[in-house]
């Protein structure tokens, strides 16, 4: 049975998820209970009477408040979104000019790109997986653009179509399909995908998060060179059944201004291909992740919001932060499954997490601190 909302109290707040809009609201627990009453069809008058009594205010004030809450909060979030369907011509092109083959452990993927435009969207971060073996294909994808829209097919199955400004969703959907095939789990068996780095010490995993440009991928490259395993960079899938992080074998994107730091550890970066992302005005190279077992999946109970301090005024600072603060930082950048059961699991998983904020300019101290975090020894 689909309920319109789900509640979870974490620390001193209650998180309410609305299935109609997929919005997560962080509220006072009493407010969340009011919304729950509305969802249970308790008459507004009765809710208002209870509120007036509970906080000792005149009924009129309580009623005004409850009506406002219903109008501005409850109703807008319980409306079902409109289903807009659009007709697309799904005839695939006769010819794809670029065909690449990738091997991930014992699985072979063939991706047909209509032209260089489509290839540039996907290939650079997978280039280290390219194989000459084009005799074995377990899975195949096709990507082409027609009329300023880019289409993605999983063999003969149409997956989606995106315009130019939403092309990052095409890339995300391709990555999701890759993950589904790699780990043999369809989309509804995944809890979410996080814009983070998934790091493991072989026994457990952690999510490292941070704004773009704050040193997340460079930190990951440093950790990888110091005994940790990169399970996934930028696109980290978590399964619903076990809340484990699984691998996504994309290359780690390294910006030009991190090369000085990383070249001593990774001399191969010197000759690796450079990719210019015009709109974002950044130039990146892709570093091969060190994970050798793409079936590896490990429990994750820790989030680390990591920032490299370019001013170098902070050697290292690491503090625990509130889960609610962490939730607010995590959600906007994440895809979370909209299946009710999965949302329940997600909120329960989140309620048990530890969340930290780590700011550093001393690389060695960062590595030691991360080691301590993994060892529960902060």
């Amino acid at each position: 049975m689909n309920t319109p909302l789900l509640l979870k109290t974490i620390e001193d707040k209650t998180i309410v998820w609305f299935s109609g809009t997929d919005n997560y609201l962080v509220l006072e627990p009493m407010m969340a209970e009011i919304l729950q009453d509305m969802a249970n069809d308790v008459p507004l008058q009765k809710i208002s009477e209870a509120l007036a009594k509970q906080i000792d205010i005149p009924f009129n004030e309580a009623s005004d408040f409850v009506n406002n809450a219903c109008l501005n909060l409850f109703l807008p979030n319980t409306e079902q979104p409109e289903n807009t369907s659009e007709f697309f011509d799904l005839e695939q092109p006769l010819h794809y000019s670029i065909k690449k083959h990738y091997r991930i452990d014992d699985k072979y993927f063939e991706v047909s790109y209509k032209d260089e435009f489509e290839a540039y969207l996907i290939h650079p971060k997978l280039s280290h997986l390219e194989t000459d073996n084009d005799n074995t294909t377990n899975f195949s994808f096709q990507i082409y653009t027609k009329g300023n829209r880019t289409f993605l097919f999983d063999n003969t199955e149409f997956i989606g179509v995106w315009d130019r400004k939403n092309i990052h969703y095409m890339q995300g959907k391709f990555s999701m399909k890759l993950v589904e095939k790699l780990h043999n789990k369809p989309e509804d068996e995944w809890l979410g995908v996080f814009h983070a780095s998934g790091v493991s010490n072989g026994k457990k995993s952690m999510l490292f998060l941070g704004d773009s440009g704050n040193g997340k991928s460079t930190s990951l490259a440093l950790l990888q060179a110091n005994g940790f395993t990169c399970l996934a960079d930028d696109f980290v899938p978590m399964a619903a059944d076990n809340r484990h992080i699984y691998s996504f074998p994309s290359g780690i994107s390294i910006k030009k201004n991190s090369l000085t730091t990383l070249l001593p550890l990774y001399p191969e970066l010197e000759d690796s291909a450079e990719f210019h992302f015009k709109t974002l005005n950044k130039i990146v190279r892709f570093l091969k992740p060190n994970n050798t077992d793409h079936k590896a999946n490990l429990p994750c109970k820790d989030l680390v919001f990591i920032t490299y301090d370019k001013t170098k005024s902070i050697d290292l600072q690491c503090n625990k932060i509130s889960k609610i603060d962490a939730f607010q930082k995590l959600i906007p950048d994440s895809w979370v499954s909209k299946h009710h059961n999965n949302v329940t699991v997600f909120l329960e998983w989140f309620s048990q997490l530890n969340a930290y904020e780590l700011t550093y300019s001393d690389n060695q101290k960062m590595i030691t601190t991360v080691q301590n975090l993994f060892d529960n020894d902060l």
Partner: protein
Amino acid sequence: MKKDINTKEKITRQDAIKRIGNYGKYSVLTALGTYLILNPKTSQAQSVPENPSRGF
């Protein structure tokens, strides 16, 4: 469009804080009616939303 799509999609704490009405002397209602609204991504997304131009 030069704006970073990720920056555009992020909600700052200030933007995320909303209030239901203004309850003046009933500060308890103002507190009760203060909430954060957070929107996850509608679908999976890559963080680098542009295609590179050379080096392929």
